[in-house]
């Protein structure tokens, strides 16, 4: 099947939906494709916490304050153009969502804003009760329904971007529910595929977050930036099994109620690590990266909880206060059989967000004309570490901008589609054949374990080098053509396509992590502790001769200290 559109948007999360709306508003025809159902497949619908924007509703605020907090968290590596755009345009998008009746929680007659760690004042909006992401998704889906000129297609996994004479001209996809290959001619293409945290064993990811967009960009000839910076969230939920709740939900309660972190000996271990750390953050004993470190070290020393993390205890908090603070969350926990007055939960660091991503300019265009990116798929705005609440703001702001700019390009461009340029990807799909392969869903978990153990929050030269060798081995084992069990909704084909991308992206993380011989933000090297001014620069990953190649940007430390 062949489709034609002005603008192809790949991924229908917050970024992709915003991009589609703005591109249509600018007069372009839009095809919004998602490998899952529209508005359901990625992180946006799963986010339950907060969104940061300097609205000044709760306390006087200005985007400049938000920017300086963002730059401080990014430890000198933020792309200031992108960070500025996010902070400056965030408030307008949050108010637009409010006008679309997303339902931001109110405090009396104004929008409520709470104080999240790393921000200098109350700045974060939310939708009660733990409903931010579902409300955002629902609101944008409603706007899509009301808009003209947007064709939405679910179950459509983009396999490769088609580039002709150095210009993006569309994509090759597979329609999952029929298995049929689909070509899409587009005058501009937007990657809005979200993050890559499915690469790790413990994560907050959906099934669709193996980092497709980074692989698509690489193979199209675009560059990635800051790929070594994967954010681990220190106290992600581990056990007992908890369904229906964001695995990072413990954090605000721990912050507010002083939840205690205990090891297997029921010892409160944070203080043992606090002495080593001058920077304490508000109500925390340890900053997030130190908490990740402390929990990991306790587990390594054999003092971990049964599931391999730490215990989190609220048992010291009186029941009435728990009820007051947790509100209806207590009932959701009870439905999962968890009673905090009686019981400890287990938490551990989990991969949660990716700071790195596709390298773009102020128009969200990559180095490949006609190819854009937005949302978590983009790198740069958050540098070496992200503040809580910035990711959804970034999805809105960059999504809108990408939609506008991609539409402008598309409306000025002539169709540039080329069957010849699409042939390699199409042929690969057509070459899929019934054959015996090792169980690729096992290969995915092997890769996740490898990434967690060797390219996780604490890295060394030895581990990273081993990881790269193993990734290469797995990639050569995967082969050049997918296996297949049949026609419609073929899980073997999906596993193969996922692994093809995941292995490429895993290497795109490991290679710059090996090169960066310092510790900064989310990239911590046990063999190179401490930040090194000489490394105040961004690393850029691209594909050269089919393999990952690395370049260094200019040192930007002057700008960072100004």
């Amino acid at each position, binding site marked *: 099947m062949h489709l034609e559109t002005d603008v192809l948007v790949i991924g229908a999360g917050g970024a992709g939906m915003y991009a589609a709306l703005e591109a249509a508003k600018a007069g372009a025809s839009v095809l919004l494709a998602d490998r*899952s159902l529209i508005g*359901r497949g990625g992180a946006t619908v799963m986010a339950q916490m907060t969104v940061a924007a300097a609205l000044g509703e709760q306390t006087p605020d200005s985007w400049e304050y938000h920017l300086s907090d963002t730059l401080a968290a990014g430890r000198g590596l933020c792309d200031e153009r992108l960070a500025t755009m996010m902070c400056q345009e965030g408030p307008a998008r949050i108010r637009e969502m409010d006008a679309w009746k997303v339902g931001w929680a109110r405090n009396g007659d104004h929008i409520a804003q709470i104080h999240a760690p790393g921000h200098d004042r109350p700045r974060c909006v939310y939708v009660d009760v733990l409903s931010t992401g579902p409300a955002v998704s629902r609101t944008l889906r409603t706007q899509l329904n009301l808009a003209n000129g947007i064709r939405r*297609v*679910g*179950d459509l996994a983009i396999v490769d971007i088609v580039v002709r004479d150095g210009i993006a001209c569309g994509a090759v996809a597979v329609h999952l*529910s029929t298995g049929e290959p689909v070509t899409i001619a587009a005058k501009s293409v937007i990657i809005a595929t979200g993050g890559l945290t499915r690469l790790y064993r413990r994560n907050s990811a959906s099934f669709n977050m193996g980092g497709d967009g980074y692989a698509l960009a690489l193979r199209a000839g675009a560059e990635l930036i800051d790929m070594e910076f994967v954010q681990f969230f220190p106290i992600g939920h581990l056990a007992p099994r*908890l369904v*229906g709740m964001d695995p990072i939900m413990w954090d605000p309660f721990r912050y507010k109620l002083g939840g205690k972190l205990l090891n297997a000996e029921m010892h409160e271990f944070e203080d043992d690590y606090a002495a080593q750390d001058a920077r304490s953050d508000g109500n925390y004993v340890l900053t997030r990266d130190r908490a990740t470190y402390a929990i990991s070290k306790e587990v390594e020393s054999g003092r971990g909880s049964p599931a391999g993390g730490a215990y989190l205890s609220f048992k010291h908090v009186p029941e009435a206060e728990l009820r007051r603070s947790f509100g209806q969350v207590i009932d959701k926990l009870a439905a999962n059989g968890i009673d905090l007055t009686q019981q400890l939960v287990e938490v551990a660091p989990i991969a949660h967000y990716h700071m790195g991503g596709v390298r773009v300019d102020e128009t969200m265009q990559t180095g490949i004309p006609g190819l854009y990116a937005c949302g978590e798929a983009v790198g740069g705005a958050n540098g070496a570490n992200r503040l809580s609440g910035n990711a959804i703001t970034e999805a809105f702001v960059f999504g809108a901008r990408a939609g506008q700019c991609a539409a402008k390009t598309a409306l000025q461009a002539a169709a540039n589609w080329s069957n010849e340029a699409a042939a390699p990807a199409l042929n690969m799909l057509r070459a899929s054949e019934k054959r015996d392969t090792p169980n690729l869903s096992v290969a995915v978990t092997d890769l996740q374990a490898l990434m967690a153990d060797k390219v996780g929050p604490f890295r060394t030269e030895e581990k990273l080098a081993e990881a790269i060798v193993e990734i290469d081995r797995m990639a050569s084992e995967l082969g050049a053509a997918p296996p297949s069990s*049949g026609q*419609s909704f073929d899980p073997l084909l999906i596993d193969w396509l996922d692994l093809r991308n995941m292995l490429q992206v895993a290497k795109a993380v490991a290679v710059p992590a090996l090169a960066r011989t310092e510790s900064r933000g989310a990239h911590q090297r046990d063999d190179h502790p401490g930040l090194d001014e000489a490394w105040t620069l961004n690393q850029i990953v691209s594909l050269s001769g089919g393999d990952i190649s690395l370049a260094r940007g200019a040192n930007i430390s002057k700008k960072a200290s100004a």
Partner: protein
Amino acid sequence: MKAILEIKRGTPGAEPHIETFEVAFEHGQSILDGLRAVRHETDPTLAFRFACINANACKECMMLIDGKVDYACTVRLKEGVTTLAPLPKKALVRDLVTEIAPPDERLHGKG
């Protein structure tokens, strides 16, 4: 603990058949955890739809569980037999996967 999953499998037009899988589980694990374990340990060709795994946010994992429409990610595994079948009122795609997208969000249009 061991759960026995009796799964109705097949493709449109073909006579469906029941396949039975045994999975080990821990207290609190979901049917979806069990299905993922089956793919991982026994049969990677088993098809079922899901995205969010833990959040119960995507609403893609609906199927017939012991005869009732429910989410595979919220219903817990139990000892003994659990029957799983595709949604009865939706067009079958494969195994437990049905066509659940709104008609105007499908490649092949409405209907």
